[in-house]
């Protein structure tokens, strides 16, 4: 008969129960941090550098969260990076060209993200184009559109009061001067917590897992699979919109040519974090850890002044090893 549910510690409950073992990527992260601390204690483990690492994880972190949803449905979204840029551009159009007030502009940008996400979702469900192709097409389309809208010139937010504070200001730092954590990092964590709740405690999250596990069974359970897929892609698109705002605020401009290639970093973070590309399994916490593994690695190698080509070689090796050791531990437990 049923055993008492002993495994429901608060941690696994927080991350959806499913994934108690996913959190083991954490050990790789700690290992990396230890190595760099030992090798370069004075430069790596400084407050400034830690805040730098946090800051550098924000954009990819938020993109990776968006990708996590898509990947759990066993889909893939190649357009996240370019969509981020498109949302940044639209924020510029709303706030700079049209002069809309900032809250409206921000909302508008996120809404554009959701809109493009649902367009991908519709292509996948209604046109029955596989996600890879639908989002590849969307990627090209949005990239071109961003360039057309801006006439390939950046849009500067210099005149939008307080826009750069979104990512760079520090609400926490204003209260506790010893802890000048930038708002961007705060936003990343808020997005992570909210998305974790959405993924584990709401219908949307439940269907995200179910679609990735057996789409046909979900359909035959009377669920409107198409509608939910569109909703999930739209939701992920909205999250990409947030990362668009983050990058725009950080650069105080919308750079229309940026963003391509970020999708691979995002997907890598997701997979390093234990989410399976074949769907049905994944956690937001894992993704965040995956994103930090990537950024700590890159930061550490740069701090050690490793030549760029060697950085590539080492990053490649370490990514493989991180996932491998994660497997090892998972099999042991």
């Amino acid at each position, binding site marked *: 008969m049923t055993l008492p549910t002993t495994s429901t510690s608060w941690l696994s409950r927080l991350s959806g129960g499913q994934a108690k073992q996913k959190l083991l990527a954490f050990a790789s992260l700690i290992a990396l941090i230890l190595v760099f601390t030992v090798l370069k204690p004075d430069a790596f483990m400084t407050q400034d550098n830690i805040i730098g690492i946090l800051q550098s994880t924000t954009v990819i972190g938020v993109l990776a969260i968006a990708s996590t949803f898509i990947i759990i449905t066993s889909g893939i979204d190649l357009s996240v990076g370019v969509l981020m840029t498109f949302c940044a551009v639209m924020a510029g159009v709303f706030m700079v060209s049209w002069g809309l007030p900032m809250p409206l502009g921000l909302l508008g940008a996120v809404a554009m993200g959701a809109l493009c996400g649902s367009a991908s979702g519709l292509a996948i469900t209604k046109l029955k184009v596989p996600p890879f192709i639908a989002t590849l097409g969307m990627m090209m389309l949005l990239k071109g559109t961003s360039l057309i809208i801006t006439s390939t010139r950046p849009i500067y937010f210099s005149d939008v009061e307080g826009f750069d504070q979104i990512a760079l200001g520090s609400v926490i730092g204003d209260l506790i001067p010893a802890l000048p954590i930038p708002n961007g990092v705060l936003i990343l964590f808020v997005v992570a917590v909210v998305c974790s709740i959405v993924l584990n405690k709401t219908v949307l999250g439940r269907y995200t897992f179910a679609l990735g596990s057996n789409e046909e069974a979900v359909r035959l359970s*009377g669920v409107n699979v198409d509608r939910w897929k569109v909703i999930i892609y739209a939701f992920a698109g909205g999250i990409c919109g947030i990362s668009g705002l983050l990058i725009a605020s950080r650069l105080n401009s919308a750079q229309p040519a940026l963003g391509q290639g970020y999708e691979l970093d995002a997907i890598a973070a997701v997979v390093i974090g234990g989410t399976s590309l074949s769907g049905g399994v994944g956690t937001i916490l894992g993704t965040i850890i995956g994103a930090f593994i990537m950024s700590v690695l890159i930061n550490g190698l740069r701090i050690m002044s490793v030549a760029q080509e060697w950085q590539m070689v080492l990053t490649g090796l370490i990514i493989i090893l991180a996932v491998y050791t994660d497997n090892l531990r998972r099999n042991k437990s």
Partner: protein
Amino acid sequence: MTPLVAIKNLSKSFPGVKALDKVQFDLMPGEVHALMGENGAGKSTLMKILAGVYRKDSGELCLDGQPTEIDGPAHAQALAIGIIHQELHLMAHLTAAQNIFLGREPRKCGGLLLDEDAIHRDTQALFDRLNLSMPPSTPIGELTVARQQMVEIAKALSHKSRVLIMDEPTAALNNAEIDELFRIIRQLKSEGVGIVYISHKMDEIQRIADRITVMRDGTYVATRPASTPMADVIAMMVGRKLEHAHKSIPDTSSNEVLLDVRGLNRGRAIRDVSFTVRRGEILGFAGLMGAGRTEVARAVFGADRIDNGEVRVRGQVIRLESPQDAVQAGIGYLSEDRKHFGLATGMDVESNITLPSLKRWLTWGVFLNRSAIRVVSQTMVDKLRIKTPSLLQTAKLLSGGNQQKVVIAKWLVQDCEVLIFDEPTRGIDVGAKSEIYKLLNDLAAQGRAIIVISSELPEVLQLSHRVLVMCEGRITGEVSGEAATQESLMALATQRD
């Protein structure tokens, strides 16, 4: 005579489950040894160890008296141990012939190219031996579960094993195929092959087995000759007395017609099918493999498009674009193929049980009401005696029969007015079967309309108030529950045009 296989004190654990605890088992040449036990008793696990799929934790395994360590499926094959797995393991995109000879492809042109003709020839020979009429070049994905099961059998036969394990080979088969299979089994017996036979169908055991070994909760109970009365065997399996669900056939003729299907057509698969089901009635669907019963059920459920026809629920014509419409109209459908259409295998038990009814377990229409979900799932787990270490166990790690129970549970929770059960007891043990029969009777008594599609005629006979028989996509006859006999149904089931 040394036994072909002798197993002693064998144990095996999975995380959270002690699947086998000091089990013993032996197999003689030329014998059919039936392995029996409730769902989750550990039968498949024991056989998978013998077939090299799992490694044993401890204990002794002897082949021909020699202690042997089987370290993989290939090794088992080399030791002439063949297995028909409980779950189908076929490559859907490959043809039947390619599936059967995977891993031992004959070559030509100096070993460079595959000899496709040779595998077709050999496959055809195997099919002939099984009296199976289908071209070896049919892709597996285009076959029904029953046909796929026959391919698995053909594949196992092609190995010319000395030990042949059959893990519920007939769960998806019809009487005719079962007869063919038994003919082959007898032939193999005479050639000295030892056969392990697992089935939940008691009549088969009596027909084919020489000895019976009973397991319960991962432990060995006893080994008896096959002549032991079945009631005793069942008592050993379940460890308690079973009460039989008695069919009471109430007069439902005055009751409201809940489901009314008119003039359903789709190509040659469904031809002018019309029928009604009343409140409180259990309607049986009998027919041979491929008769079109599943097709009709899927069409009524909106899972496949139809050419024409209409479906009314409570007199109201319903839109049938997708299963969603059907569920909204109060129809539920339990698929015959749980692996592909029933179970979200990667999700936990409670998520599966509440999947169709998720809307009911939400607070503010968005958040999952975890405690309600837990309560309702636990109720189902208890009611259907689903053997699982926890509600959060991944569904694919349950034993086959328990998976089936999970799929049944999800439609019980959804609480539809019209329930279509397609092969509901496939792979379910006797005890659970009679519980499910009782449950179906209760559901009907509560005023639901129930359709039961089953290839087991006794099941149809026991459950149905009325039986429809299909053949080649048409309804060839209707028999009332009292009047129906196996013979009368078979006659209708073979009424081709």
